[in-house]
């Protein structure tokens, strides 16, 4: 029972990171109707920037800020320089360009920083606190959870309470009408990419210390898990992404805890297939009309 409780709490904290990362995927999907397969590589690149700042200045918070800023810049750059020019003749074009970007980013990181695992500094203790004799969450897990909750709340405020959020939703929902009403749709697309990459950067900063360390491939599996989380929630729903992230985090925590860490990729594939074959629109989808 103690172990179950521990795995549950652990699952919630890793699930929070998956939720943030899935949220980044959903943001781009809603804005541009594409899955950003380069999200993981972009997040690793910004994490490298963040931890370089941490080791240069000694301040975790400066590094975190630098990573998020780098995420904003990288997201806008990728949209402005690459994704905008992908032709629509081939529907797979955007996925292929994103995968090329993955190779490019990982290679550049490997050339600049080397292909070794680099240890990362964390601001909080990663040893679990014991509450009533039971190992519960570590202070670092609590920080992760808190940070994700704040980001989700901020995004919810942005999309429901501000003019920018309204314009972004409008240009994703009805681009032509929005353009007629004076919304700069293409600029909203850039903002969407920047925002998503910044959320991804934050998730990257949070998740890297829980793994083996900083490495060009550190986010490969995390990306697949986050994609699963986004699909579980339905790619279209931010709330679904959060719930999906927590759900996938819990399931993977149990699988890893009871069956061993090697089974994680297998569990991810089974989960992904199960959701896609049983409820392709995600757990929260309603009945959908088919367009011919």
């Amino acid at each position, binding site marked *: 029972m103690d172990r179950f409780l521990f795995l549950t709490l652990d699952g919630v904290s890793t699930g929070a990171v998956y939720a943030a990362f899935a949220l980044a995927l959903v943001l781009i999907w809603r804005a541009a109707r594409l899955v950003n397969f380069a999200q993981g590589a972009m997040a690793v690149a910004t994490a490298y920037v963040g931890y370089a700042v941490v080791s240069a200045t000694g301040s975790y918070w400066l590094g975190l800020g630098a990573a998020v800023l780098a995420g904003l810049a990288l997201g806008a750059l990728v949209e402005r320089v690459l994704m905008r*020019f992908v032709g629509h003749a081939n529907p797979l074009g955007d996925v292929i360009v994103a995968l090329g970007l993955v*190779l490019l980013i990982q290679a550049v990181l490997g050339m600049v920083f080397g292909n070794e695992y680099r240890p990362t500094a964390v601001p909080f203790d990663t040893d679990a606190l014991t509450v009533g004799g039971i190992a519960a969450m570590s202070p670092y897990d609590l920080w992760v959870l808190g940070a994700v909750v704040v980001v989700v709340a901020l995004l919810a405020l942005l999309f429901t309470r501000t003019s920018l959020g309204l314009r972004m939703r409008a240009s994703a929902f009805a681009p032509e009408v929005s353009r007629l009403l004076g919304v700069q749709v293409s600029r909203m697309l850039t903002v969407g990419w920047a925002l998503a990459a910044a959320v991804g950067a934050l998730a990257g900063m949070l998740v890297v210390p829980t793994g083996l360390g900083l490495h060009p491939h550190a986010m490969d599996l995390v990306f697949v898990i986050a994609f699963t989380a986004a699909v579980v929630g339905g790619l279209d729903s931010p709330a679904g992404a959060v719930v999906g992230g927590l759900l996938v985090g819990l399931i993977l925590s149990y699988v890893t805890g009871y069956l061993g860490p090697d089974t994680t990729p297998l569990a991810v594939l089974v989960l992904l297939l199960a959701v896609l074959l049983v409820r392709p629109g995600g757990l929260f989808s309603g009945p959908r009309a088919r367009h011919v």
Partner: protein
Amino acid sequence: MTATRPSEVPTERPPAAPSALRRLLPGAPGSGTVGGSTLLRHLIVAVLAGTAVVLLTNQLPPYQNLQVARVGAFLCVTAGYTVLVGLNGQLSLGHGALMATGAYTVALVQQALADRAVQGRWILPLSLLLAAGVTAAVGLAIGLAAARLRGPYLAGVTLAVATLVPAITTIFTDVFNGEQGLRFPAETPPASLGAYFQPERWLAWVALLAALVTMVLMANLVRSRFGRSLRAVRDDEVAARLAGIPVARTQVLAFVVSAACAGLGGGVYAVLTGTVAPGKFALELSLFLLMAIVIGGLGSLAGAVWGAVLLVALQDLPSLLTETFTLPSGLARRLEGNLALAVFGLTLVVVMLAAPGGLQGAARDLLARLGARRRHPSR
């Protein structure tokens, strides 16, 4: 997307009856009705290409022959892959894992036979056939799921498959021997070729034969009724269904065929080194394969040849650089591996943005433009 432009033939002249020679020679794309037997035409091209490569391998030193062999192994994979992605529109990122399936099948079969002291020249073709068969079965399983998935969803699922290889080899470590991988007896040239026959040349021939068989089969498939169904399903599923094409069955079958090619290629790839290990079949391999078919031109078999050649040539680029220029050892170590990755990634992005038809498409456009200029010199 790949619609062939009707050639500008003057209408007043009646079409001449095709001569016997014309019927045998490879016709231009789209002239299928004039060219006689498609199979015969493809076989002639294959025999000519095969003879040319065999003559070439007689002149090459061992390492270059091994590279020819690697091109052959990759060509098996890219030929089937480009049919799936380019002609059927299903983007799989799991072909590296399918190659691993074929490679491990060959390794396990050959190891099991070697343990029982079974010998014979039939072991190689048998293990390669089994590799194609087992991988086709795996492809059937993925394809059944894939037929219900579209675009990014399929890419995501197959990406998950690609990350699975190291995990599977570790979970079933007593079968696959984990990270270490498997070794099996190296392939030797038959005694009838002489005692001093270069082993690499034999490997190149084996890979070449596998590649030619795959290419001929794929070339015929592409021009068959099934090939047209593949394209119809890619372009418009609803229209294809209205025309009586079983959409799901076509998609599953495309995946199975493509998987069998990947299994064969993976098997040949394993035979070249006599070892298999999960590290060789990482996610990057799938992305490399994708680059190979994109740069050659999605859906084009000639493009698959370009892609396989470039895949092998570009992987040797870093070692060429470090040999040509004396680099500091730290820099050289960082460039090794990463430089090829960077070049591949950049090529993928640039080709997709600048020339979505790939090298083959660009060459075709250029030829068409030159031809048009010759026919209408006043323009």
